[in-house]
């Protein structure tokens, strides 16, 4: 279990990075956290000719709260996002979901943007982005584009990122409305394993503390993260928001998604 040889690139600026990516094109692979890529290389299931290591590109590790949400740079580690109190205040679901991503040791190196670009249908952050209606910014030499979550995830391990491009930032909009709560629940075989099923819930209440809107985002139930509106389901439950409502919402949601089919 040792990787094949590759040419190593260590750009220190984004410009440099985009130039290298443009040159190596489809023969190149971006190395960010590498917590998924490196084992793949070690098992020789992938052997890109060029590895472009973006860990030393200045400024990419930013975590900013502005523009009505949290902006996470390409090399910001899961752990950094998880620990960021301002990010938590703005978008609690980030921390609520991140604590379920593998184990702390992996989160110390793995990056949030990397896990999005990676588009694993079991990756917690994919559903978080989808549920919040966030976006990912992709850069390539000479151009930049911002892709909404709905268009970003194409299938298992397929995101909108194409050769020559690098995902530089993800934007997680803060939930709107005065009374909005979020939660994450998942079931896995062992602590820290991929979720057998994972559900993120976003619930907004009206002034009578009745459910005004409720949506859930699910992982491990289809080829891409699934978002289901469960407002009606929750309305049927009188009274204030309870954990039971969330559980039921999740139940309805998984039923809905099952009907919708999936891998």
């Amino acid at each position: 279990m040792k990787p094949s040889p590759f040419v190593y690139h260590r750009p220190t600026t984004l410009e440099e990075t985009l130039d290298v990516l443009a040159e190596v094109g489809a023969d190149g692979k971006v190395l960010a956290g590498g917590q998924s890529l490196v084992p793949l290389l070690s098992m020789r299931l992938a052997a890109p000719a060029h590895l472009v290591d973006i860990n030393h590109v200045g400024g990419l590790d930013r975590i900013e709260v502005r523009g009505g949400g949290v902006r996470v740079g390409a090399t910001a580690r899961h752990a950094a996002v998880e620990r960021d109190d301002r990010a938590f205040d703005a978008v609690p679901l980030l921390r609520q979901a991140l604590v379920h991503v593998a184990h702390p040791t992996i989160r110390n190196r793995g990056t949030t943007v990397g896990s999005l670009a990676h588009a694993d249908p079991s990756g917690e952050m994919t559903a978080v982005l989808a549920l919040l209606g966030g976006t990912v910014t992709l850069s390539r030499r000479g151009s930049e584009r911002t892709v909404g979550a709905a268009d970003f995830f194409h299938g298992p391990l397929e995101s909108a990122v194409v050769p020559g491009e690098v995902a530089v930032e993800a934007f997680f909009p803060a939930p709107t409305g005065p009374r909005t709560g979020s939660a994450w629940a998942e079931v896995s075989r062992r602590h820290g394993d991929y979720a057998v099923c994972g559900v993120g819930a976003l619930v907004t209440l009206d002034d009578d503390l009745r459910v005004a809107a409720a949506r859930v985002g699910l992982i491990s139930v289809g080829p891409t993260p699934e978002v289901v509106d469960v407002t009606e389901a929750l309305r049927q439950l009188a009274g204030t928001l309870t954990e039971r409502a969330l559980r039921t919402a999740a139940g309805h949601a998984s039923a809905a998604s099952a009907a919708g089919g999936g891998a």
Partner: protein
Amino acid sequence: MTDLHDVALTVNGVPRSARVPARRLLSDFLRHDLGLTGTHVGCEHGVCGACTVLIDGRPVRSCLLFAVSVAGATITTVEGCCEPDGSLGPVQQAFWDCHGLQCGFCTPGFVTTVTAYLDENPDPTQDEAREAIAGNLCRCTGYQNIVASVLRAAELRREVRA
């Protein structure tokens, strides 16, 4: 075809360097290029935790990193968890006191992980102690004495501070 890189970093407070191919995993770099064999390799796909080392104080899987990618970093291995005089550090002492190891192969990964954990959580409960080691596999001990070791280590560190 192999492009070689001079990788210099600080390991256990000592500047170390070696000339290696880009594909050299940090675990192999530490073990075979630097001869620090205390760090062990149990799966090479990031699950078992035996290869855990600290980079700038934070635990990471050295089998999931390329040495060249962390050039310049400050690394602590199990060897660096000893006292300056070479005697056992508090975490190591606690594992000894509590019979927290049997074959000893996974142990270095536990020692580094627990060392970093206690830096941030000096006073864990039993459940927190169990959670703290949940990313490391041990096939010998059943973990019970390792959990006890984490609590004992916290105790020892408090004694040292007092």
